């Protein structure tokens, strides 16, 4: 293509066209803080980790929550088991996140760099999904325990049972519970789509463009 050759000729000879920076001008530039995508993702990931760790621990600092929790009479083994499990998961995630971050390198190939950033993001995504599922399961368990240990509830249930309405009642409760979880999950999901949609739109587009070549 002749035009491109013409462009090449011009491109290679126009070296003097750019305002040249002196060493004195470059020195202060290397001290400035980066505002790269990786940095943004790093801060957001840390915020996510902290948020979910707080969500798991903060309620136990409040007295009323503790009282309610005691009322549930959950078995100690189950309680400690769940706790150990959730902290182990956090440690595993932090480890994976750390190794994934270490693999992000600006001297990688264009495709390699994009791939590693997306992989890092995926790990955080898994962590969030895990937390949502864990939250859903634990609220169902908590709800169940609270119900069966509440005297008023048992009384009501016996009445309903004698009327033969217990099945419908349980169905109603399950429906409301699932609906609440679904709405809650959807709100969080939407929030994530928004943050990472904005942040990763360009990266995803470019990565797809490179991947398209391989197929």
């Amino acid at each position, binding site marked *: 293509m002749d035009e491109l050759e*013409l462009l090449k000729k011009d*491109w290679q000879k126009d070296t003097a066209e750019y305002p040249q920076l002196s060493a004195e001008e470059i020195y202060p530039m290397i001290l*400035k803080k980066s505002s*790269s995508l990786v940095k943004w993702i790093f801060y957001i990931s840390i915020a996510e980790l902290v948020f979910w760790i707080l969500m798991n621990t903060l309620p136990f600092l409040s007295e009323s929550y503790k009282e309610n929790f005691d009322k549930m009479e959950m078995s100690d083994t189950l309680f400690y088991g769940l706790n150990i499990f959730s902290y182990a998961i956090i440690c595993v995630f932090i480890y994976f996140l750390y190794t994934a971050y270490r693999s992000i390198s600006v*001297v990688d190939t264009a495709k390699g760099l994009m791939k590693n950033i997306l992989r890092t993001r995926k790990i955080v995504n898994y962590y969030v999904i895990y937390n949502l599922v864990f939250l859903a399961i634990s609220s169902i368990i908590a709800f169940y325990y609270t119900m069966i240990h509440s005297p008023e509830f048992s009384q009501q249930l016996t009445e309903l049972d004698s009327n033969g309405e217990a099945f419908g009642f349980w169905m109603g409760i399950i429906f409301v519970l699932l609906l609440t979880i679904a709405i809650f999950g959807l709100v969080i999901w939407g929030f994530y789509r928004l943050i990472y949609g904005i942040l990763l739109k360009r*990266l995803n587009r470019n990565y797809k463009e490179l991947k398209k070549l391989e197929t």
Partner: protein
Amino acid sequence: MKLSKELEHRFVEELEKHQNIVHKVCRLYTNNQDAHNDLFQEITIQLWKAYPKFRGDSKFSTWMYRVSLNTAITLYRKGKRAIRTQNMDDVLYKVKAEDYDDTEEQQLKLLYKAVHQLNDIEKALVFLYLEDKSYREISNTMGISEVNARVKMNRVKTKLRTILNP
């Protein structure tokens, strides 16, 4: 302390010498002088951060191509300064008139404009092509196979032609 000063000094010296590579990347990926400066700043930071691991087994300039393109394509987030002005007249920078007759100058202007309409990946390929890099180097920098680099480059040429002669 002395060592890091030395490193700093060596880096700044090298960057000063090869700064046109960064300028050229900025020229392709930005639309005005503010954005140009902002991207230049970010690339400088990324180069400096990666510099301690630069072993010198590749040329400094080759290493710069990678870091600069990766920053422009993937890492760079527009700073406040870059968003402030959107003056499209600055876009094309001035094409020097001296050796050209009018039609050639006109053609060049159109060419630069067409290149600006390409997407990020296509721009990177054009950049490496204009810098006279081999397909092997293009493939190494982008992380795609040599064959695919060739295929893609041909498609970019066709696309440019379509933009120029709609």
